[in-house]
């Protein structure tokens, strides 16, 4: 029943090969785009089939492993290429291939006329292949292969406009930061493999066996080390506090890339990894606390930066970082289901937002191009009043913005509120919960503020574009708007499959389908919680409603503030900036984090290696080697003086020799 699963990753790989090798010859763009999208559509269909088959199985046995071939076997270590089909991975392949397909369609229109067209689509297909591999992999090593594969594709796609130095730098920065994360991931794999093997003679890295043997692991201690290493990997990939600076720079890549990689799929890999190994993370409360705190801080921190950005894609990038912070907050408080739910809904509305901004940039670029002005097509200060020019894009963009700000009824509200409630009521962190909830709610308010600020600045008010270009602004072609509509619909409807229980009972007992669907994946951690849980969470319905109300209230406040600042009286932001120039400049320059990293890590590293090379390698080692040569030369110079060429010297030394020998023999 599941034997055609290997088609899911294979189809995009074939697409990659076709476009990669023959792309140059197939000049025609629609053929290239068509092949790529068809491949991803094929894998989407097969994943639907797999999901359907999986749902037909009873709840408990929804876990199937399909082995393709054994990859590396040496000594006690063996890793093989095998796929794990279970509710979590099915959900992920649906999201990846579904959103991926829509974005492929979108980029056929968006990338029209680019000179490396085939290269773009082959890399996009390669990305889909590695993401599916990551999600479907049944052991840590295969997940790591997908993990680095997506890192590589994000490097290739960010650096797509490689003639631009900033794009190439951004690509390199992304790859190195991901690599730092992978360093942590690798250490996690080694420690886990070594500990389980040497202490309990269980030499394995496959998820199912790890789950079944997870009872051997102690709470805290070594498990904290392992989970912290894995979390380091997650921060690298999903752009959390220490390693997030690469995501805003990744906006150098084409917008569909940002939509697919830096919003919907790749950045959620970290969240997926934690969900996949929930039985590990649940066993170390310290790591959960670390994840929760970092998640909350990232959410709040990124939201603050987002409020002051003028580049439309930078705002969305920081909003992605902040939403990821929410997901990690959910993971940190043990609400794995809520985290995955937010991951799914975020994929929909964030992809819609990015594609919408892409459409805006696309038409702005076209218009400015006609007017031969080289204003920045992405700067919101040149936009405004596009509501009338691009009605469809405006509507879809507005719907997605409402969803992300957590207005009740839309998907964002259900998933974000579930996370906030779990943060408040979870049994893990005791007093920390209030702080977590507070930061989450504040971040929600800021999210609402900067999202609506973006909407008002781009779509409302009078058009600030250069007059000549004004009439060239037009709605994007159908192939671009269609995915927008689908995604907007999903972001509206998406929330209903995971309605929190308290609201569900209100509307006549609609169960939380998603929670129920994902239960088998997290049963190990539930068992552990039931067994070890010191104190249970708070189950007070009234409190839940109260908190839900406050978070909606904060969101509404955010929207009204945005409205008053950017629509009603436009002067206030200027005066605000004048009042607090220092604060504004700090927030606008991303709290100088990039400069901080450069001065603390990058420049000293360069200086140190320069010292190592010039100082140590050249002077010390080569010096020593050449020194030996010079001393030998010097000694030979001295000995050469003896051959002075004067006979008397020779006679003298001969006589001296004779005398010495004679006296030696005599005295002996």
């Amino acid at each position: 029943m599941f034997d055609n699963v290997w088609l899911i990753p294979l189809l995009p790989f074939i697409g990659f090969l076709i476009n990669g090798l023959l792309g140059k010859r197939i000049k025609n763009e629609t053929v290239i785009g068509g092949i790529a999208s068809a491949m991803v559509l094929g894998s989407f269909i097969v994943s639907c089939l797999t999901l359907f088959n999986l749902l037909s199985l009873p709840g408990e046995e929804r876990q199937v492993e399909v082995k393709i071939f054994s990859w590396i076997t040496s000594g006690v270590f063996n890793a093989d290429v095998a796929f794990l089909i279970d509710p979590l991975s099915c959900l992920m392949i649906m999201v990846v291939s579904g959103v991926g397909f829509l974005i492929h369609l979108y980029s056929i229109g968006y990338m029209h006329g680019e000179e490396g067209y085939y290269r773009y689509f082959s890399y996009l297909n390669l990305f889909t292949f590695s993401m599916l591999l990551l999600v479907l992999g049944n052991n840590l090593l295969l997940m790591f292969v997908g993990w680095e594969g997506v890192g590589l594709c994000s490097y290739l796609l960010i650096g797509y406009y490689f003639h631009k130095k900033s794009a190439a730098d951004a690509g390199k920065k992304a790859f190195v930061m991901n690599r730092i994360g992978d360093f942590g991931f690798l250490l996690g794999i080694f420690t886990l493999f070594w500990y389980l093997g040497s202490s309990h003679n269980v030499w394995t890295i496959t998820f199912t066996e790890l789950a079944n043997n997870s009872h051997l692991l102690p709470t805290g201690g070594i498990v904290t080390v392992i989970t912290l290493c894995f979390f380091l990997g997650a921060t690298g990939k999903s752009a959390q506090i220490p390693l997030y600076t690469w995501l805003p720079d990744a906006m150098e890549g084409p917008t569909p890339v940002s939509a697919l990689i830096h919003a919907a799929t790749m950045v959620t890999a970290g969240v997926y990894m934690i969900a996949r190994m929930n039985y590990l993370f649940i066993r170390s409360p310290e790591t959960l606390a670390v994840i929760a705190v970092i998640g909350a801080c990232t959410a709040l921190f990124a939201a603050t930066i987002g409020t002051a950005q003028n580049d439309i894609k930078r705002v969305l990038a920081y909003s992605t970082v902040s939403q990821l912070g929410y997901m990690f907050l959910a993971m940190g408080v043990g609400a794995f289901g809520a985290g995955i739910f937010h991951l799914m809904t975020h994929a929909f509305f964030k992809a819609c937002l990015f594609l919408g901004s892409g459409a805006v940039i696309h038409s702005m670029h076209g218009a400015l191009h006609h007017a031969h002005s080289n204003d920045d097509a992405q700067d919101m200060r040149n936009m405004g009043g596009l509501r009338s020019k691009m009605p469809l894009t405006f509507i879809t963009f507005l719907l997605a913005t409402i969803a992300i700000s957590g207005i009740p009824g839309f998907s964002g509200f259900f998933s974000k509120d579930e996370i906030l409630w779990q943060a408040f009521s979870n049994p893990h962190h005791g007093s920390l919960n209030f702080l977590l909830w507070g930061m989450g709610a504040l971040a929600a308010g800021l999210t609402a503020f900067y999202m609506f600020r973006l909407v008002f600045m781009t779509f409302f008010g009078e058009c600030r574009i250069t007059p000549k270009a004004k009439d060239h602004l037009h709605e994007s072609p159908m192939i671009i708007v269609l995915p927008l509509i689908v995604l907007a619909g999903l972001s509206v409807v998406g929330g209903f499959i995971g309605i929190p229980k308290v609201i569900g009972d209100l509307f006549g007992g609609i169960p939380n389908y998603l929670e129920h669907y994902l239960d088998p994946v997290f049963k190990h951690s539930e068992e552990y919680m039931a067994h070890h849980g010191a104190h249970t969470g708070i189950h007070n319905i009234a409190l839940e409603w109260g908190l839900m109300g406050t978070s909606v209230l904060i969101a509404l406040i955010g929207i009204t503030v945005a409205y008053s600042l950017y629509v009603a009286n436009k002067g206030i932001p200027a005066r605000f900036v004048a009042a607090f120039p220092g604060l504004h400049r700090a927030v606008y320059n991303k709290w100088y984090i990039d400069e901080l990293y450069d001065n603390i890590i990058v420049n000293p590293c360069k200086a140190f290696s320069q010292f190592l090379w010039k100082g140590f390698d050249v002077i010390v080692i080569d010096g020593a080697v050449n020194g030996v040569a010079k001393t030998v030369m010097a000694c030979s110079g001295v000995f050469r003086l003896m051959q002075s060429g004067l006979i008397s010297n020779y006679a003298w030394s001969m006589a001296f020799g004779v005398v010495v020998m004679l006296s030696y023999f005599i005295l002996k």
Partner: protein
Amino acid sequence: MSYILSLTTFLPILGVLLLFFIPKESKSVLRGFTFAVTLVTFLASLLILFGFQTNAEFQFVENVPWIAAGPFVMRYNIGVDGISLWLVILTTFIMPLSVLSTWKAVEDKVKEYMICLLILETSLIGAFISIDMFLFYIYWELMLIPMYFMIGIWGGKNRLYATMKFFIYTMVGSLLMLVAFIYLYMLGSQAGIPDFSVLHFYNLRIDPTIQVWMFMAFALAFAIKVPMFPLHTWLPDAHTEAPTAGSVILAAIMLKMGTYGYVRFAMPLFPEAAHRFAPLLATLAVIGIIYAALVAMVQEDVKKLVAYSSVAHLGFVMLGLFAFNVQGMTGSMLQMLNHGISTGALFLIVGFIYERRHTRLISDFGGLAKQMPVFATIFMIVTLSSIGVPGTNGFVGEFLILIGGYESELRWWAVVATSGVIFAAVYMLWMFQRVMFGELNNPKNQKLLDLDAREIAIMLPLVVLIFVMGVYPNPFIEKMDPAIQKLVAHIRPASMNAKILPAALQSLPVGHPAMPGHSGMEESTAPSAASGQLPAGHPGIPAEGQSSEPVVNPHESK
């Protein structure tokens, strides 16, 4: 076909003899003929590969009396086993490519160049297959001479300095080794060993103190060749001055001679000393990885950068060797092959752009990706293989080394070495970006033409191998596994009595005193560690105060 091994070794010499009859002026005939000879040698080596049964014994053994001078009896004793098989195939595989790459590179004295290449090939193959230690030493020294001439005559500006340094560096090391050989032979002859064959010496019990000195002599000679950290400065000079083919062979095969020396001679002959020196040499290896990566980052010369990168890669290999477990060893053997392919390819690529622009400074390039797209993709694939991105060959070797290292006592060394993975990405990508991406503003770059058919023909087999070894490395691992199992079984018990470490080393986070046994290999499953508690000296959370089980100091317990 029991003489296939000698045939493969001396085929190039036959080629040299025939080369004499070809007139000096007809360059293309010379090149064509040499290419044909190396190709035939490659086919002959394929016969060895297909005829090789996967077991731990030496095969195609030829044992013929050779010299009997006074007490010394040397036999022409050659054979190939799991460990040396792939290295021989790598040699015969790389040679035709390097000959093909000197089509336009070398114009003057082509005949002598080809003769040097063929003699080099013979000496390399000979060194890998010789069981008789004296024969090994002869091939070991013989390979220096052609390389000395290749760098000395056809090299770059200060080639004399480079070739002199290279020659003397290796010579000094190998003289020490010769002394150790002779002393070992003396010990052997007292114990009734008739000749120089290394197999006899494997089970010769040498008391640890002598072992330490002998191991040091061998280790120094091979450390220079590897090159390990403090003794590596000859490599960048030799590479920058060597002609393309010369530096390809130097990087792809001659560096493996050092690590092969450890696996074949230094470790099995003196297991206790190997265990005692493991922390020191592992430290040097790890320093080598980080140090070479950092220094590579700031190089202006592409070839020097690649040279330092190969120092880093071989640091990984050495770490894998001193893990003394099957994963570590398999990983390092694989990494030797990967390094041969990826660094060989890198040097070929540097050779291509050097032939076009006659400069190696990174700052002279920029934006080549637009001008030479095919070259860009190949260069990208090889860079990824050198970084060790999964799916390429580099990753499999590195992963096995690190997981092997992590499992052995070298746990903290493996952790530091894993960070080498980050630096590898940094310097390779930074170089790749400065050379390929960015604006195509330099007028000279705008006229560069993309790779022609010959160059693509050189790079194609390498790229295919990169992916094949990355995706399906099992056939390679199966062939070498029995030999490695036997080697590890030979070395591992020695670690028991090497446990009498001087008190100073006691503080190192030595794993649980009773070596954690591996179910795969040893029957005796080690007593499982304290149930839930942290094994003593565990790298994790520093055990607050003494963990439940004090580290048993073998001295007191005796």
